[in-house]
């Protein structure tokens, strides 16, 4: 009779053998390859804990007129669910002190609150629809949410060189039917699993926006962060640059720094 330990060992041996044999038996499908890359991308970004950064958004209309937004962003990694984020606006000055609290979720709508300093009022936002623009920019709320594997289904398309990097090109279809996009084409580099470019297709399946990532810097010896993200809207000619000025990791933020009481007294 097999003991429990023996059974486990035997089973793992069988699994291992089948894993070794399988690639030879039938080649990995494009869907499997896409999912594998997405999982590795997420795995490489686990464990950063919490972060604090200052960002500038430069909004540009089709005529080239510019307007600047300045904000501070605090983020907290949540295991097993989407991250928590708190954005405090410093400019334009008429919205200074306004703050946006977001609890991102994988399988249900995010929880969102907005703090209005003049009224000292916290307003909850019904947020099933994430496709709305963030602060008048070309970024939608969903473009700024944390990346979660379960939010898309994947299909590997081809290999391509981009920004001097070898990259996989993957088609990602949002699983949330309230997403503003029918699909995204994502360029992920092979060296560090960093996203280099995303093309967004609207619900009518035509190309809407292109997001490019630049000035990647390495933090804590493990986490890559782009310091310049440029979103171009092909349908309106407008564009937005999101520039991260200063990112600090593991500054000691906890759940308490992302609750409604903190939101009520935020500066």
């Amino acid at each position, binding site marked *: 009779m097999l003991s429990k330990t023996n059974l486990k060992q035997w089973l793992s041996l069988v699994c291992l053998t089948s894993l070794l044999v399988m690639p030879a038996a039938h080649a990995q499908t494009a869907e499997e390859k896409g999912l594998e890359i997405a999982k590795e991308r997420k795995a490489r970004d686990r464990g950063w804990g919490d972060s604090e950064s200052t960002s500038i958004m430069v909004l540009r209309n089709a005529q080239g007129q510019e307007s600047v937004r300045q904000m501070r962003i605090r983020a907290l990694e949540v295991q097993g669910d989407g991250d928590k984020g708190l954005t405090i606006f410093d400019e334009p000055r008429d919205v200074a002190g306004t703050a946006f609290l977001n609890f991102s979720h994988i399988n249900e709508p995010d929880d969102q609150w907005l703090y209005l300093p003049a009224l000292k009022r916290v307003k909850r936002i019904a947020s*099933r629809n994430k496709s709305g623009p963030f602060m*008048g920019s070309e970024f939608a709320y969903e473009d700024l949410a944390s990346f979660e594997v379960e939010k898309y289904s994947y299909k590997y398309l081809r290999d391509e060189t981009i920004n001097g990097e070898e990259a996989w090109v993957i088609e990602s279809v949002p699983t949330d039917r309230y997403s503003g996009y029918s699909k995204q084409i994502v360029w992920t580099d092979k060296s560090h699993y960093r996203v280099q470019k995303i093309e967004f297709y609207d619900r009518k399946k035509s190309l809407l926006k292109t997001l490019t990532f630049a000035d990647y810097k390495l933090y804590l010896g493990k986490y890559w962060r782009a310091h310049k993200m440029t979103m171009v809207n092909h349908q309106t000619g407008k564009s937005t640059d999101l520039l991260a000025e200063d990112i600090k990791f593991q500054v000691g933020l906890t759940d308490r720094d992302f609750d409604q009481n903190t939101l009520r007294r935020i500066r």
Partner: protein
Amino acid sequence: MRLKITATAIAMLSSASVWAEQEVDIRGYIGAEGRYFAEQSSDPAQTESQFSINAEPEFYWQWDRGDNALTFKPYLRIDSQDSERTHFDIRELSWLHVERDWELRLGISKVFWGVTETVHLVDIVNQTDSVESFDGEDKLGQPMVQLSLIQDWGVLDAFILPGFRERTFAGKEGRLRGPLVIDSENAQYESSDKSGHIDFAVNWRNTFDDLDLSLNAFHGTSREPMFVPQLTQVTQSDGSVAWVADALTPYYPQITQLGAVAQYIYQDWLWKLEAINRFGRQIDNYNALVGGFEYTYVGVFGSFTDLGIVAEYAWDERGESGTTATQNDVSIAARIVMNDISSTEVLAGFSQDLDYSQSRSLFIEGSTRIGDSTKLTLDMWLFASEDMQDLAYSFRNEDFVQLSVEWYY
């Protein structure tokens, strides 16, 4: 203007440097406003137009990464017509201390309770600065000791409120007001402590997934006064003697108010409800509620514009004999958010009284940004009322349009 001041203090005994990081933040605005009234005033002392300037600087100083903070926010308005609207107030002057599961605030501050948009029933901690705006959203600074307990079962705020603030009212030359001037110099109180009565309040709130709940209680001087006519004896042409009211004296009774607030999110809908029970020796025991929904349609007709619909119903048990104009009223409003670089927004709507069918009001409020830091706001209110029993009747001639410019720094 966000400055980071890093001060180095050298602790001589340990010969080690102690770094204390302090942060100072100064912000605020300076504004100018013009109001034009469409109809002739009921009092010859009043005029059809009114101009004013205002300023609200805010000084903020924090240390221990924000676990200790001082806020000072004075406010000043100077009005061309109304000596009552020309006023100074300390909106905030408080010290805040934050711990992991409690917070303490000492000083003058502001607290908002509630979820609804048209009527704020449960919101009682701060007095309304009604000369500021018609919608009652502006509040006077309230002296307070506020202790907040942050626990698994929710957040409990306990308040001690020393020092009552009288409601502000438009003066003889000012608008918007009814035919009788409210004599706020000679306010009367039920309590022998007058404005020195110490009030108490408590509020509990918690979020249960898609449901936000809060329960609160207040005991002390009512923020909403009753009005006692000041009678003067006049001898009429036929020699008979009559009493004529030529002003109203505010009378502030002692009350207890129990309030409940609920908000439920369902898809793109926010359902809201506020209810109160108020009683006291000098007032009727009564119930009132306001409830409704807010629905947001993101990206109307494939554009970047959001359309929000707000519909609310307000009810007061005292009905036509009560002290509120919204005793049985429906309000419907549309909020258009352009999501453009200038953050352009328009809120337009109307209120209909269901008891007085001829009584309604219409409002439009639009705002946009000019350049980097100048905000332009246009407000318009139109009032209609034909029944003298209706409290809104006194505002029937007060239709106005108001343009304000605020420069932020």
